[in-house]
């Protein structure tokens, strides 16, 4: 029988993979994609909790919907910022976008 821990483990792995992406990728868009992975991990676990712990309550579904909304908004704003950066720097390589420091 596949129980809650299986899902939680999958979620944790996804979260770890996303975290890995955010700390290693140079491409700003790739970092953004990695963050999406992390959000997905949380969504998966929400539904797993619903399925195995609180099947009578509907919150997790709503949380996932809200999480999705936030992810969509985040993508829109993030990509707009990336566009502007690309216009000024001619690149989306984060290692070349480091004028502010110290």
């Amino acid at each position: 029988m596949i129980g809650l821990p299986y899902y939680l483990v999958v979620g944790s792995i996804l979260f770890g993979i996303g975290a890995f992406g955010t700390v290693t990728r140079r491409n700003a868009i790739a970092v953004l994609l990695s963050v999406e992975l992390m959000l997905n991990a949380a969504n998966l676990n929400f539904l797993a909790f619903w399925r195995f712990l609180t099947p009578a309550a509907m919150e997790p579904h709503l949380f996932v919907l809200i999480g999705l909304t936030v992810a969509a908004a985040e993508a829109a704003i993030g990509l707009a910022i990336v566009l502007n950066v690309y216009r000024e720097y001619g690149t989306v390589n984060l290692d070349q976008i480091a004028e502010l420091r110290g």
Partner: protein
Amino acid sequence: MNAPLQDLAIAPIVWAIPGLPLIGFVLIMFWGGGLVRTLGDARGRRVVGTLATAVVLLSFVISVFVLLELLRLEPEQRRAVASLVPLMDRMPWIEVGPVSVQFLALVDPLSVLMCLIVTGVGGLIHLYATGYMSHDRDYPRFFAYFNLFIFAMLVLCLGESLLLMFVGWEGVGLCSYLLISFWFDDEENAKAGNKAFIVNRVGDVGFMLGILASLAVFGTLSFHTADGRGILDLAARGETLSGPLTVATASLISALLFLGACGKSAQFPLHIWLPDAMAGPTPVSALIHAATMVTAGVVMVTRMSVLFAQAPVVLLVVAAVGLFTALFAATIALTQTDIKKVLAYSTVSQLGFMFLGCGAGAFGAAMFHVTTHAFFKALLFLGAGSVIHGLSGEQDMRRMGGLGRYMKVTYWTMLIGWAAISGFPGLAGYWSKDAILAFASGIPSIGMFMYAVGAFTAFVTGFYMTRLMAKTFWSAPRLPEDAHHPHESPPSMLLPLIILAALSVVGGLIGTPWGNAFERFLEPVLPGADMLHVHEAIPHGVGLALGALIAIAAMAAGAAAYRRAPSAELLPATVKATQPIYRAAANLWYADAAANAVFVQGGGRFAGFVARWIDKGFVDGLVNAVGVVTAFLAEIARGGQSGYVRFYAKTMIAGALIVLAYALIQAGMR
């Protein structure tokens, strides 16, 4: 100690004592510049200077009235609170939880005494500054800061709670910073400002922690309250908020407070900022770094004397630090060539005497010395300022000499200051220094040693002051060829000198061992005899005689030693003036030789060593090192701010990982 708070008829105008200088500050700050522009330079400056001086002198007048009112009461009833806000009975300031701090002044002998000193001496120095600063382009700003300083200092002295005292404490620190830096243009001076800053921070943290500790222990910050639950009320009864006051608690609080006092009052090793602070204009040195602000530590210790009295170990430390600083700074003063630096180290040394008095439990004697020192040290600084003014800014004594001819008033008043600080019998310094030494001799088991070292320091004091006089006035003129012709200062600068000289002569008579009106006046704020047993191991007569002998010997030895330096015939007018002393010195030929051997050769080398290695090398180096190391660490830490998002993300994830892992492991272990 536990008298109830009285109602004073004069209470409704007590606010004006600090209030008037504040008004002066606001007026000059906002309209001073405009005034100078509209009235024209000369008239505008006169108006600004007069205004600044007038508010301080007016405060002095009010302080005198308050004193008279206080004297009408029985000694043990001389304690009252008064609102610091006009037309309001008590205005709350901070109310956090059960603790309430109000804008109240504590009117008692200690605070009134300090008000008189600050406004009296301060007023004279203001008057002096109107002449001294007359050519400065930032004239209004200078007086604005000056008035602000007087205000802050009065808040420090009058504040009814530790927190209000802290307000004044930080305020005077800020003004000192602003005024030291008043003439700063160059890098070197900026560094000096930094040093003053770092050192004072150490002290301020001590004071702040002391305040927090007393809050935790006594549950209040007021010194006295109507229901007898103030810090000093409780401490006098040996109580705390809960349970009796233990020696350990009293020691902790007083040690922290003493750290604060060390910073502000320039005690070893926190003394190093003071000589550097002399870069500011001379009136600033006289007012802040001699007469008033630097004595704030002594005032604070005296204010909290009930607590210190219950911490015998701390008292011993206070005495030891004071004595060491006194001797240490005196030896350094022997080696300085800048006239203001000599006086600066002399101030550090005299402050050491005051703390010696506090440590011996003779808080009254310490305050007495604060008072007389305010007179003669202000006098000496102003005199030095007059010399510098007359020489158009020259401060190096090696390029002075023979100045008595050109500036007679300055010379004679300086002469009185010299005699007073050296402890010439009958003058102000004689009585107060003797009182401190006499009580120091009564410190259990090591009293006589302390007395001996203290007496020796007094001798050194007389010697280096004589040296200063000799180099400045008695020796042959050594002015550079192209220098301006030395000239006497304007009357506005001479009048304060004359008044201070008079005070230096007679000011000590209020505290002679036979009719010590001064100490009786302060008695109500000091710990009672049941709490702290203070005695003098040396009989009055012997002590006074020894003191007189040491002073005269030092002055004579100095005069004799420095008589050789210049060729004698080049001192026509001035030598005559000091003829009696010179004759005495000549008769005491052995003193001459001894002084020569001990000081000019051996001692001189020792003093040079102290100045070069311990003071400049070690302590100074330590403070500089603090600055350098901090800056270095800051640079390293800032290197982490590499600008790379990936690096920032790594830091975040690593931080999160550490936080999570630590919490989970810790939970697992439980």
